[in-house]
């Protein structure tokens, strides 16, 4: 009985020793690597921030209007954006290098998968970002146009424009990542088809009223000629 117990203890000790001798050096190496990359990331962020500040990039971007284009509040700084991007890239690289130290099937698979997916993720992220900017820009343009044209509910109409553009951007990004392609494509078809059908019905319903208003407007034109002339005199 004691022999069996002793053997179990022995086996457990051997296994522990095996794991410790096998993984501890790798773990320590990985932690050292991650720590080194963390220090490098912090340093890079600080240096880049100083360099950009010295080059007055923010001032240039602000004066050229590019900064205002990206962020209308004026709070976003290009120097901070670049410095943070460098910081997180280095941190992520450190993490991947740390994982690669273990050299197991699992970690190798994880790293390969990430490296393979990374460019696609970046492109998809850029598509979504571009879509977000475009949706804001065109949404605002539509809003101003709708207000000047005296259309009803201009904010809601502009919101619809924004959502539609954003939706298209997400569909394109999903297509690029080959992620739930059918789901997004089906949703896209449904939304666009629904919008077209709604517009057709609205046009059909409004046609009668519109025609009546147009005839009324023509009659009123002569009466309002004086008022309109306010705009015709520059």
């Amino acid at each position, binding site marked *: 009985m004691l022999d069996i117990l002793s053997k179990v203890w022995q086996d457990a000790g051997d296994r522990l020793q095996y794991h410790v001798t096998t993984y501890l050096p790798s773990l320590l190496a990985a932690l050292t690597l991650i720590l080194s990359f963390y220090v490098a990331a912090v340093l890079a962020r600080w240096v880049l921030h100083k360099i950009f500040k010295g080059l007055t990039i923010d001032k240039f971007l602000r*004066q050229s209007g590019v900064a205002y284009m990206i962020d209308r509040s004026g709070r976003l700084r290009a120097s901070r954006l670049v410095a943070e991007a460098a910081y997180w890239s280095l941190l992520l690289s450190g993490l991947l290098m740390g994982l690669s130290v273990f050299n197991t099937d699992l970690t190798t698979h994880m790293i390969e998968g990430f490296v393979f997916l990374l460019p696609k993720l970046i492109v998809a992220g850029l598509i979504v970002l571009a879509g977000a900017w475009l949706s804001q820009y065109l949404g605002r343009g539509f809003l101003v146009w709708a*207000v*000047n044209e005296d259309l009803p509910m201009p904010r809601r109409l502009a919101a619809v424009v924004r959502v539609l553009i954003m939706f298209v951007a997400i569909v394109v990004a999903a297509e690029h990542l080959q992620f739930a392609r059918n789901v997004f494509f089906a949703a896209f078809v449904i939304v666009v088809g629904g919008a077209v059908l709604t517009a057709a019905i609205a046009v059909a319903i409004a046609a009668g009223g519109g025609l009546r208003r147009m005839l009324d407007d023509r009659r009123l034109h002569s009466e309002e*000629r004086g008022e309109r002339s306010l705009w*015709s005199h*520059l």
Partner: protein
Amino acid sequence: MPEIVLPDEARRATEFLNRADIVIGIPSYNNARTIGHVVRAAYAGLAKYFPQWNGIVINSDGGSTDGTRDAVLSARVEDSHLMLLTTPVVAAHRLSVPYHGIPGKGSAFRLIFQLARNLGAKACAVVDSDLRSITPEWIDLLLRPVMFAGYDFVAPYYHRHKYDGTITNSIVYPLTRALYGLRVRQPIGGEFGMSARLVERYLQREDWETDVARYGIDIWMTTIAIAEGFRVCQSFLGAKLHDAKDPGSDLSAMLQQVVGSVFLLMQEYENVWEQTGATAPAELFGFRYDVGLDPVQVNVDRMIQTFVRSAGDLREIWTAAMDPVTMSGVNELARQAEAGARHFHMDDELWARIVLDFACAYKRSPVSRGLILKSLTALYIARVASFVIETETMVASEVEERIEKLCMQFEELRPYLRQRWNNPNPLQGGLEHAGHSEQSVAGRG
């Protein structure tokens, strides 16, 4: 120097004529109803006041479909009957050519200027084709200062109804005067006289493909003449009566083109207006007299409603474009109007700050310029409504005094413009100015 390709008939005509001393340009688009009168007045003006010079009347047409060009070529001018002359005068030539490129008044002018240069003209005048009040004397008044007094640019000076020319009165005149220091009362009048030297300078420019090609042309011409030190004067032309423009024409687009040109030129001539001190009146020629004017009716309630609606919908865009103090003044005004304030009033300081803030926003955001300018429309409408209410019972001289007061306000705010122009962050600009004017701007609305 970018040159346009002349249409064949224009090229043939210039080769045939070889030279002309005076060119009178008339841009047109579907003005068959009025252009005949304008051509006859131009002809009579040349014959009566410049008989010793070779003159040509050039119509630059934007593709009219109502027979405008036929009306130009068939306008009959009976010199002897018109001016009681016993000796016949050499009739001036006339030419009607279509221009190409961006449709607009500026493109039409570009062709006229090109032809004037090719013909070696000493002076050039341009007049609108929808004028009903033009007389032969206008040609004399626009050209004589150039031909005989050494001026380079003659701007018109008219009597207009108090509600007519609202873009001029509320934005272009006060701003141009404050920026460049010369008081030209009708900087976008539409009728101008120019020397060959100035025409040459216009043609050297490379910004013809911008808003200048459209409604921006008038302020562009005036600003260049003033800012580049050409000799500028004004001629009193009496009353300006003209056909109503296309009722479907887009106010927002007009405002955008005119104000956009002003703002764009502000950037180019920044070093000029930063040095500007006290303003001086431009010399005025011609005999001044009072005239009757066409009444202009305005629906103020509708304008105020438009402003109130827009204040809710465009708040985000206005906030980005304007200083927080200005924005709070606008918000206060909208609140008062919404609550049914009996006396809707946008004071001069608030309006001047709005215009100057938009100029700065236009500078700092090249991508959103169109958006910024279009969003100014509702604020401009509010200003016009306020002006109409305030001047309802005023006579012309009182209204002129009122406009003078607005001009002084623009001049007083020049330091504010300089500060904001060089400090594009709206939040910083606002905080620095919040102390002295938050109460004054918001409180008077």
